[in-house]
């Protein structure tokens, strides 16, 4: 493999963004800008599909590795993918073009800059999932704050400034401790190369503190209870495309980080802190589900449901079993598709009625039937109905949890029931019931681009719900290897 496919994936969106930046002053034509951005992100999508096609599922080693000297004697620019990361890259490249299509209606001012921000964001997100060096990872992880801050702050709703600041400062605060940990790892082992670190291992006496430092960053980003409070604010105020990116991809960075770094680098500390994660996950699942039940704002409800779903993810990861981690990754992919779709669904009605309150709606099934059908698909996927991708992930996670800790599993299952309650209730109140608000009668059903984006998201949701094999095949070997290494190092410690 001589063609640097991963670097191309990382750089392509930025090149598109640069192109947009420099052509801005000449062409005031907004359509052109959108096509340029869409074209760039689609090329990136097909490139990533090609990557999946070339990907060898039989090995757990990193593939397509590029290793270049970056800061002499200190850091190498190293990227590569294995079964764990490749799906996230495809998710990113899949969601981004859909975001760009969806800006049609929601973003009215400074479209050009918005597209630039989204493309730059894509670069950073792909970079996070590819990087095999801790410093490179940190760089991409943190750099994502800049475009997201601007997306929320410039194109957001009424309380956008507060939300943007909260988002930025919360995440930054979590991350600086991770930077201390990364430098400490460099000092302890002499390298920040993840592959080498997997081989060398880190002395167990340092692991607990390092684990906590990484945890502080990932917990904020996941977000776990009690540091989840930035998420509802950020989601509510962000424009639709921003919410989609945030829910579908940004949150996954932390889950990915837990698998790649917390489990991979600090196995004995992960063993120690598993009860902590279990507790926080269960609280997140039940507590935020209950909060979601009481929400009057649709976006806020979905935001809280995201916290609950990510609670399942962290729970699954730290069962440290094949099914649990597989389930977590599938749950993340599924949540990426479903929450993106739900935010788009909210965006659709918001663009027409300019209200996100549930009370505004009711009985719109007769007015916009196509919308009602697609919205139902995603509602059911969010509550984990068999036959949707949401089911596969939750089922695997709960199965692994039952093996490990009965109480935790029972409590988490309770969360599933509450989850079903709030999603179905939401659907009932918005779609069914009496058509009281007469303004609603003027609503127009999905236009072509909205129908297209939602269908694009519905197809994989259902496909992987019935047939999750392609996903599981891709991740299976890498996870097995990860768990073997984990068990080996925990056993050798005792």
């Amino acid at each position: 493999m001589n063609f640097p496919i991963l670097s191309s994936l990382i750089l392509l969106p930025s090149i598109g963004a640069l192109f947009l930046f420099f052509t801005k002053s000449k062409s005031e034509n907004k359509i052109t800008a959108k096509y340029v951005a869409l074209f760039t992100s689609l090329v990136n999508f097909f490139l990533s599909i090609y990557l999946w096609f070339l990907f060898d599922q039989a090995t757990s080693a990193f593939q397509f590795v590029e290793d270049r000297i970056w800061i002499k004697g200190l850091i190498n620019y190293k990227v590569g993918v294995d079964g764990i990361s490749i799906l996230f890259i495809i998710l990113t490249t899949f969601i981004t073009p859909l975001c760009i299509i969806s800006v049609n209606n929601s973003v009215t001012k400074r479209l050009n800059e918005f597209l630039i921000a989204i493309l730059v964001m894509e670069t950073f997100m792909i970079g996070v999932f590819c990087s095999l060096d801790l410093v490179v990872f940190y760089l991409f992880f943190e750099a994502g704050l800049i475009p997201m801050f601007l997306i929320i702050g410039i194109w957001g709703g009424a309380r956008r400034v507060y939300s943007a600041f909260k988002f930025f400062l919360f995440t930054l605060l979590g991350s600086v401790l991770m930077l201390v940990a990364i430098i400490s790892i460099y000092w302890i082992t002499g390298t920040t190369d993840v592959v080498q670190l997997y081989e060398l291992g880190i002395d167990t006496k340092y692991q607990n503190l390092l684990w906590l430092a990484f945890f502080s960053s990932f917990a904020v980003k996941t977000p776990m209870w009690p540091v989840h409070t930035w998420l509802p604010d950020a989601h509510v105020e962000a424009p639709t495309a921003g919410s989609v990116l945030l829910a579908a991809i940004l949150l996954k960075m932390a889950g990915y980080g837990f698998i790649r770094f917390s489990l991979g680098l600090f196995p004995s500390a992960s063993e120690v802190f598993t009860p902590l994660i279990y507790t926080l996950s269960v609280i997140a699942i039940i507590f935020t589900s209950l909060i979601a039940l009481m929400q009057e704002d649709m976006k806020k409800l979905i935001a809280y449901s995201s916290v609950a779903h990510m609670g399942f993810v962290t729970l699954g990861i730290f069962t440290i079993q094949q099914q649990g981690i597989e389930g977590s990754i599938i749950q993340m992919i599924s949540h990426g598709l479903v929450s993106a779709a739900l935010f788009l669904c909210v965006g659709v009605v918001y663009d027409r009625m300019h209200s996100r309150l549930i009370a505004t709606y009711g009985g719109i099934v007769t007015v916009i039937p196509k919308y009602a059908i697609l919205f139902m698909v995603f509602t059911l996927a969010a509550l984990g109905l068999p036959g949707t991708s949401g089911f596969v992930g939750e089922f695997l996670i709960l199965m692994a949890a039952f093996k490990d800790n009965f109480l935790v599993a029972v409590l988490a299952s309770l969360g599933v029931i509450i989850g079903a309650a709030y999603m179905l209730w939401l659907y009932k109140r918005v779609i069914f019931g009496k058509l009281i608000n007469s303004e609603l009668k003027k609503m127009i059903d999905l236009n072509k681009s909205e129908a297209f984006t939602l269908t694009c998201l519905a197809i994989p949701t259902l496909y992987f719900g019935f047939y999750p094999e392609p996903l599981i095949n891709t991740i299976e070997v890498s996870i097995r290897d990860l768990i073997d290494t984990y068990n080996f190092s925990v056993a050798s410690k005792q």
Partner: protein
Amino acid sequence: MNNIELIFPEIFISLSIMFLLILGVFKKDSSKIIHNISLLVLLITAVITFNETLSINPTTLFNESIIIDYLSSLMKIITLLGAFVVLLISSNYLRTFKIFKIEYPILILSSVLGMMIMISSNDLIVFYMGLELQSLALYVLATFNRDQLKSSEAGLKYFVLSALSSGLLLYGCSLIYGFTGSTNFNVISTQFNTNEYAITFGIVFILVGLSFKISAVPFHMWAPDVYEGSPTSVTLFFTMVPKIAALTVFIRFLYVPFLNLIDQWQMILVFLSIASMLFGAIAAIGQKNLKRLIAYSSISHIGYALAGLATGSNEGIQNSVIYMTIYIIMNLGFFSCLLMMKRNNIYYEQIDDLSGLSKNHPLLSISLLIILFSLAGIPPLAGFFAKFYIFKSVIEQSMYFLAIVGLLSTVVAAFYYLRIIKIMYFDEEKDSYDKDHNLWLKLSLTVSTILILMYFIFPSELIDVVSKIKII
């Protein structure tokens, strides 16, 4: 006299100052030509320094009272280039206030001469001489816009407080001289008795004096007032150039004679560093004036540079130098923006004046955005790498507390940088500013923005440059 060519840069610059003074006295309306000659002088001096002294082995002159080595040559070049850029972009500003006079470039040249002597000093007396030369020139520069009350106030405040700190510094020098019998750094390092507390007192007094010059907390009180009151171009000079010289003296003074006493001064430096980082970050939050804000931000940045010095390792020193270099570039970009905020011959310097800048001046505001995120230390911009190197060397010495406090204060600092960005991007627009700017101003903004943005592509170059600094 051997090796006299090594101080050609200093000789050249002093002769030029005298020549320019005479020219200014005898030729009428010569401010423009003197301005241009001064630019040339700074550039030529930088070239001489680069050619003659950068690649030689450490050499001492005049009974070891002057030292020429890689560190001093490098710092001199940075100082000279910094002064060059300041002079280059300040002409329009000075013209607006009708203070485009012959004294301005000459004073800058004299203070640069003082700094060069400081940087090369290997002796307490030589060091003090250089310090006073640069300070005297700076007092006058601070009051340069003498018709404005604030400018006169700034100069007076600076003068009084600076004189006080010079007094403390001299007292420290005399203590050290009293207990070692010499003012020469090399002699002191062999003479003193580590158990003698008077030496420690001497070090403390000198550190106080030096901290004052670089405005480290708790000796920072003058900085916000002076930065706000001085003409903006002079503020730019204050934030960039004198700090380089003072930092070099810091390095030389602590690491040459008193390396053995590292236990004593390391604590002081850690305290200065933590106090500066935190205080600078917290106090900046409430500011309304951009120049005051940048004063607090510079206090906080000096804290990071001191954190590198506190490590007691060569690498720490190198990383401090990298930090200052990157900081200077960011500052240059920031002040270029500030100098562009002009409408109908009035310069605006309140934060609120930036409101909605992004709509009328998209390019200016995107540059300022990049500079501010870099000042806040967000990757992948240059400011992040500067902080990264510093914390790398801090953690290598197991000074975790310093590292964690430092990184947490970056989060606090991020808040006020974000506030400026918020005002630029999220708020409603005001009238637009003049768009016909000086070419040099545009150039300096563009170059500094590109350097900050593209630093991550070639991060090794700067490390290569500083890696030849070896003090210990």
